[in-house]
Each structure stands twice: as C-alpha cells, then as structure tokens.
C-alpha cells in the first residue's frame, strides 16, 4: 500500500487554486426556479446516476456528450484530471442540467460539456453562460476554448455569442475550435448571462440537501421526446 500511495501521488495532477462559484438562481420560462451551484467531488456518484440513462440516447448526440461527460466526471472524482469543476442546475432539488470544464492554464479555460436533462427551457444556455461566467469572472481567466459536438451546441455557443474561431486545438478533438474572449463575453453578457445572487436560503438548502433525479425512463422520455408513444 505505501508503494501504491507513492504512485498515486505521481498520477494525481496538481491543481490550480480555484475560487468557488457563487450560486445563483434563474427563473425559467415555466416559472420554476433553477439553482445553479458548484458540485462537490462527493456529488459525482449522484450526478452520474442522472447522466447514465442518457448514454443510450442517440438524438442530438446525447450519447456522445453524456459518455464523455461521464468519463470526465469520473476522472475528476478519482483525481485523474487537472483542475476540473462541475456546475449543476437543480429545480426543486432535481438535477436538470450539468456543465463542466477545467483550467488549462491560469489564463486559459477548457470548456468540456453541457448536458440539459430537462429540455425546452434553455437550461443549456443558462448553464453554459454560468460556465463562461465562472472562467472569466471568478477564475480570472482571459479566454475559454470551446468545441461543439452537436448542431444545438453550435447554434447556442458559436452563433449566439458569437465565438471566435481559433487554430488552438481543443482537447476533445472534433471540428474547429472556437474561443470566448473577455471582449466577446462582455459584449454578450447582457443578453446571455443572467441570474440573481444571493440564492434565498430555502432554495439553496433544498438544492444542497440532496441531488434528486428522475427515473431512467422519465429522463429518456424528456430528452428523446417520445411522448404519447
């Protein structure tokens, strides 16, 4: 075991200091309030339970996004990725979306994935915006590298912000890499980055008390839209 611990020390990447992301609350189109907060490493097993049912959904590349997110979260949980973080969206305690990323350097962020578990409420947009907010306003970085794996992602990030193409490769591989610079963020902030702080205690307590998740069939139905059949 001592030898294992020595190896473990070698295998574990060093971490950049990461100030916490202060939680915020968003009113969704249906009037529900979504708390966006930072996940703790211990939350990962509960999050993975919600990500797992998405692995078999081909629609809108949910299978690829969730498989990669699953691996990234597991790697974070077991100390195999450097300076990763994860933000959660919760409504009434239920997990409705997950975003993650990491610090590539102290100045450059690496956006990983955005997974909306409840759809049609622009949860993905809000969570992606929170992720950008974290990198630029709390981690103090200057730019974030981003790549899209689905047409929805491309529309939401590359076009809506709009992002700037770059030759710097993104570690997820894939198509062209883009980046969100501080200037682009400031220009887009008023129309894409919202939320209120502080989160009322009752809402935050409910979110932090338990990460609730719907059953597998419900999650698949919500995402794949198989209503009535």
């Amino acid at each position, binding site marked *: 075991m001592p030898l294992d611990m020595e190896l473990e020390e070698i295998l574990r990447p060093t971490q950049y200091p990461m100030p916490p992301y202060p939680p915020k609350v*968003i*009113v*969704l*189109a*249906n*009037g*529900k309030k979504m708390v966006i907060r930072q996940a703790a490493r211990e939350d990962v097993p509960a999050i993975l339970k919600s990500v797992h049912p998405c692995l078999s959904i081909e*629609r809108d590349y949910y299978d690829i996004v969730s498989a990669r997110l699953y691996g990234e979260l597991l790697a974070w949980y077991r100390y195999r990725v450097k300076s990763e973080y994860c933000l959660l969206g919760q409504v009434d305690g239920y997990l409705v979306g997950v975003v993650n990323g990491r610090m590539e350097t102290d100045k450059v962020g690496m956006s990983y994935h955005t997974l909306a578990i409840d759809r*049609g*409420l*622009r949860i993905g*947009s*809000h969570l992606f*915006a929170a992720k950008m907010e974290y990198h630029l306003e709390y981690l103090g970085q200057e730019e974030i590298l981003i790549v899209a794996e689905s*047409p929805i992602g491309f*529309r939401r990030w590359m076009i809506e912000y709009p992002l700037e193409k770059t030759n710097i490769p993104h570690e997820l591989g894939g198509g062209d890499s883009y980046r969100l610079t501080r200037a682009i963020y400031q220009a887009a902030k*008023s*129309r*894409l980055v*919202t*939320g*209120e702080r502080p989160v009322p205690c009752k809402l935050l307590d409910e979110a932090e008390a338990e990460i609730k998740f719907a059953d597998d069939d419900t999650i698949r139905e919500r995402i794949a*839209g198989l*209503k*009535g*059949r």
Partner: protein
Amino acid sequence: MRDVAIIGAGMIPFGRRDEDSLMDMLAYASLKALDDAGLGDRSVNAVYVGNMGAGIIQHQTSIASSLVDRLSLLPAAADVVENGPASGGSAVKNGLLAVASGYYDIVLVVGGEKMREVTGWRATDFVATMTHPQAEYPYGITLPGMGGMFTRLYMEKWGVTREHLLAVSLKNQAMGALNPYAHVEMTLDREGIFDSPDAVVNNPTAADPLHLYDLCPVSDGAAAVILCPLEMARKMSKAPVLIAGFGQATDTHTLQERDDPTDLKAVTLAARQAFEMAKLKPSDIDVAELHDAFTILEIAESEHVGFFKKGEGGKAAAAGKTSFGGQIPINVSGGLKARGHPVGATGVAQVVDIVFQLRHELPKNRQVKNARHGLTVNFGGFGNNVTSFVLKRVES
C-alpha cells in the same frame, strides 16, 4: 350540392418524430380517422393529401399515390393539394366539393408535414419559398421576419401591445399543456418569459417585436378526416359534424402591394363566405381555431373574422375573452403556438380539433360547454390564400 358531414377524425401527436417517415405519419393519422369513422365494408372513393414540402424536404413527390397504396385503398382517386401553410384547409375544401358535387361518397382528407428532419434554418428557408421569388425571397425575407414587420405595423395602427401578445402566448401554451397531441406540452409563466431579467435568455427577440414564445414551433405531424354525404352520415353510428360553411379568398402575393398591410382582406372574405353559407354570424360561434403562427395573427384574425372590432382583439385576449370559459374560446387546442405547425397538417388539424369539440368528447378542462358551432381559419402565405370553415354539431 349535397350537405357534407365529417364522420371520422384522427390525429397523431405533433412534435419531433424522428422515428417516423412522412408516409408513416400520414398513414397513422388516416388509420385513426378511418377507425373513428367505422366505415365497415364501405370503401374510400378518393383521398386528398394536404402537404406543402415533401418535394423539397423529403425529395419525395406523388405522396397521395404512395399513401393509397400504403393504406390498401386502391383504386381510390388520389391527389396532393399544395397551398402553402393552408394546404390542409385546401385539401378539406377539395374533399368537401368532391362529396358535395355527388361525384364521390366517401373521401379521406389527410394533411401532414415532416419538417424536423432538416435544421431550423432549412425549415425556415423552406417556408420562405412561399414568398415572392423576385420581390421578397432574394432579399432574405422569412415568415418570422414578415410576422415581425406586420406586428410592428399592427401595434402602431391598432394599439396592440406586448402585453396583448403575451396574453395569447400564455393562454395557448396553457391549453396546449392539456392537449396530448400538442408539440409543446408546457405552460409558460409570465415572470419567466416577460417580467424577470432572465426572460432575456428564456424568451429572446426572434423578429422584433416578436419574441421566441410569440412564434409557433417547427413540427412534424399529421391529421385526417373522413367526409361523406350528411344523409349517409346520419345512418352511421358516430355523431356526424356538418361542414356548414366554407370560404376561401386570396390577396396580393407581396405585402407591400396591399393598400393597408394590416388589413387581412382574405381572412375577412373567407370567413364571411363561410358564415354566409352556414347562415350564421360570428356571435353564433362557440369555439374557434385560428391560425396563430405568430401571436399577432390570432389577435388580427379574431378581429378580421368579426369576433371583435379592429383594435379590440388584443384587449379582448388580455381580458380573457378568448380564453377557455371566455366569451369566444380561441385555440383551445393550444393552436399552432402549442399544438405545433406541421404546415400541411395544420388546416386539417384545426378541423379535427373542432370536430372533437362539437362531438363533446374532450376532457372537461378543454371541452367548451354545449359547443354547437365552430370556426377555423387556415392562413396561407402571409394572408394571400386563406381558407375558413364553419362546422356544426348535428343533433340526433
């Protein structure tokens, strides 16, 4: 001319139906209407298919021929009817005239469209092919763009406000949430899409002054009805619904050629014809399905068909007069806003929804009490080709 009744109606849930082809959807809706009609050993003489874009989106033509074969309805006559977003209404008209003339006894009318197999950009471009090929399309006009400009004019001339548009949006989404066939089964909240600072993300500007939730979704779906002479319908088990009135009118292709672009003359004329044929007036209508591709259109049409005076439609919506339980419930199905707008299906779906209402078979939370007369308006182009039907419950 014979009186014509609807003896069967069916529809499939609208939405994004990746797993179904256009032909699958047309067949499912047709079978539901045929089952509903309970034709027994009677055969269908003719089939009219309302569809706008199979040739463009699916690269498939002659879909009526394909459908009769798929449904084993050979050798029934079969035609596709294309009239933009009013293709469904025009298909019902063709079925109506065919039965009324005495040439056919039993006709299947089905409308369907599969729009979600292309990106939203391509779907928007596809719908824009109905605009003028020299005066509009080359300049990048889209239907939401036209809707935005129309809304701005309507606001300036008739005092419509965003509050009025919001009232339509909230009302139709609330009703759609109760409709199992609706594409968007979700209620909206005023704070979430209007009052809260988060609304800027939840409900962004789509085509100023229209916002995301002022627009209908792009949908897949199909709906069908079976028509036959009223006298034949009376002998069958299902409660028939009479097509008491029908109207259709056209207007200039381009909006700028109209004396007053806010005057939807074709809507006024089509509805007037339908009322005259039915010997009814707007105040006789118990429930209406109006073509709310944009929230402004429900308001404008509610005025042009005669439910309200010009400039009063928006106020009426905001006052709850067009809500379920109000003076004239409009779009109790959720309308195009929530039920969805698979363009070729819409005109038929409106008729199906009114049939359900007039047969008094909907759940209490959507059934208009004692509904006897219903109106539909199916809006083609930007009001340049409009169909309207007045349907009447046939008491046994």
